[in-house]
């Protein structure tokens, strides 16, 4: 059986989730009979990747979802799971992602973004309030390049705006203000080659917002599948997810998060390397689709191995 490197842990603030995703995948690969080596991100990583037949990237956030690891593997011409470096760079940047979605007619909430440099050195502080006034309250503030809803805040009134923006800048140098869309939150996972949408999972956060706090607090969020929406709406959600994934060049696996408002799916963000822990959304959708987690891992790894040898 091929030797598979599982890259997990990493340097990002999502290390905890990545470690759990990696352990889950490694266990499945071992059950499938693979020779598995688990690797963290350090100076020994690149040499170690050469000895594997393929790499399963279970990193979230920085390095794993921003194209860094993918670029290394492409330079080494080693096959790996998931989207390529370019697609990852686009998907990790919410501004680029939303821009591409809009150009293709996929609905995503109106937004503005500003860099810390613009605020600090170009007097753009007042522009934050201008943008918020234009979008209206409540609104969402979040870092442009961050996962797991880290730094995300629901801003209900003007007094909450500046602290939320300042908090979001702690996670990255660019911050987005986005219109808040009320509705039913759905996560549509996609698996396969080509990517096919799985049954949407409905996300019900007791706080009303699926932020980082609710992701780490037991019982703070309920995932419901099948989602409690009409079949036609769920079909539309799957269709939008498939279109978004194709447009952004995602492959093997991914997740598109959206809000269904007045029956229309509104895409919030996309995840080229979504969480696959035992309690993550994607494995839940996989199970609902009648697949085992091992089936899912086999599908993804086989797709990577089929790309060997990698060419420029």
């Amino acid at each position, binding site marked *: 059986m091929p030797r598979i490197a599982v890259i997990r842990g990493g340097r990002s*603030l999502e*290390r905890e989730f990545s470690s759990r995703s990696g352990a889950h995948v490694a266990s499945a690969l071992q059950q499938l009979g693979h020779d598995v080596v688990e690797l963290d991100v*350090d100076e020994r990583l690149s040499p170690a990747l050469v000895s594997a037949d393929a790499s399963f990237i279970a990193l979230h956030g920085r390095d794993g979802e921003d194209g860094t690891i993918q670029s290394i593997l492409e330079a080494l011409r080693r096959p790996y799971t998931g989207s390529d470096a370019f697609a990852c760079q686009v998907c990790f940047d919410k501004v680029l992602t939303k821009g591409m979605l809009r150009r293709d007619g996929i609905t995503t909430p109106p937004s503005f973004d500003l860099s810390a440099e613009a*605020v600090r050195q170009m007097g753009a502080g007042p522009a934050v309030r201008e943008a918020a006034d234009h979008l209206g309250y409540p609104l969402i503030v979040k870092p442009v390049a961050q996962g797991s809803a880290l730094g995300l805040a629901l801003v209900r009134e003007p007094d909450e705006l500046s*602290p939320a923006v*300042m908090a979001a800048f702690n996670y990255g140098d660019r911050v987005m203000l986005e219109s808040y869309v009320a509705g039913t939150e759905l996560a549509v996972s996609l698996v396969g080659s080509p990517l096919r949408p799985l049954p949407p*999972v409905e996300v019900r956060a007791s706080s009303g917002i699926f932020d980082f706090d609710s992701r780490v607090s037991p019982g703070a969020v309920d*995932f419901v599948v099948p989602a409690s929406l009409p079949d036609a709406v769920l079909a539309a959600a799957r269709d939008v997810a498939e279109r978004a994934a194709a447009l952004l060049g995602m492959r093997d696996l991914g997740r598109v998060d959206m809000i269904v408002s007045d029956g229309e799916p509104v895409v919030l963000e996309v995840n080229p390397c979504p969480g696959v822990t035992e309690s993550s959304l994607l494995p839940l959708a996989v199970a609902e689709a009648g697949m085992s987690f091992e089936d899912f891992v086999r599908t993804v790894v086989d797709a990577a191995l089929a790309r060997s040898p990698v060419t420029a």
Partner: protein
Amino acid sequence: MASGVDPYREIYSRRTEQMSGSEIRALFSVLERPEIVSLAGGNTYTDAVAGRVAECVQAVLARASGVALQYGPGTGLLGLRERLCDLMALEGIDADPHHVVVTDGAQQGLELIAKVFVDPGDVILTEAPTYVGALSAFSSYQVNARSVPIDEEGLIPEELARTIIDLHGEGRRAKFLYMVPTFQNPSGVTLTPSRRAEILEVCRRSDLLIIEDNPYAQVRFSGDPVTPLRALAPDQVVYLGTLSKVFSPGIRIGWVLAPQPIRERLVLAKEAANLCTAPFNQMVAEEYLSSGSTEEDLQIVRKVYRERCQAMLDAIDRHLPREVVVRPPEGGLFVWVTVTDPLNTRDMLARALRGGVAYVPGTAFYPVKTDGKQSMRLNFSYPSIEQIEEGVERLGRVLDEELELGRSLGI
């Protein structure tokens, strides 16, 4: 409808609802990374005792392996309890070994105390800020924790009295007052002798039991010792001690010294929890305390902490903005730093971790999580002097960036 993630959620007890997850804990996963300087932990300097552990283990196995490898009494082994009383005597506490229960660290003592005294919804009083582990132990018993502020002299007696009166007005009574009077965690503040007398008087008048958590008394590195509350008022105080700062946190030996009726219930609760603290660990600890080297080792530990604390204070002086307020401690493991508007230490933690340094935000130490946003706890006992310098320098850069951003945003 299938509900995902946790198929058991319908059968959990209500008390688990108060066991909230922690964003801070999840972020601290990156502390495993070598590039992060952690000023966040509470680990102790164990090099002084590390060389003696093997001798103690061998002595225990040679002397009494039959006892060490078996179950033991829920009270703890008498030999260890006698040595613990010797240790408390150094602080002026006249303790009877038969009033002591050995626990798995003082943390288990807190759990047992909550188990023995607290029904769901009961009010308890704590200092604000207070030890985060105590809040965790108490909250799992569904307490209503009310906090009483401290200042540079420790818990404020007038505030305590006012809180008791307020509770009386609500028709309620607190079950106990939990406090860390000496080198308080996280603030490092020590309750002054005059305040000790006042607090005891307020509690005596209100018939309010005090839980005195005293983990740091032996690691005083400057100033004069202060008499524990238990030594001043044996019947008003349940005392918690630990060998974590004397010997090692890894040995997990703590104890509770309590009036006899309370002690009897604690023993029952202890036996229900885990039968007994590992006899092997108890005997190794007893062996160490009997070896005659404890004071010698503690002198090394105090010297190391004095040097590291000073290094941290010097680094803070060099690298942190002038606006920060720092209370230099005379012992313990922590420096408590308070920053100014618009800084929020909880929000800032992400920037700090990205900048390669970790601390514990002040919000962790308050029952109400919106309190403490302008404070942070820094640990000096575990990092080396070089790491302290590097960590504080990085923290200074983080604070500078934050302040500049706040100004630019007009906050």
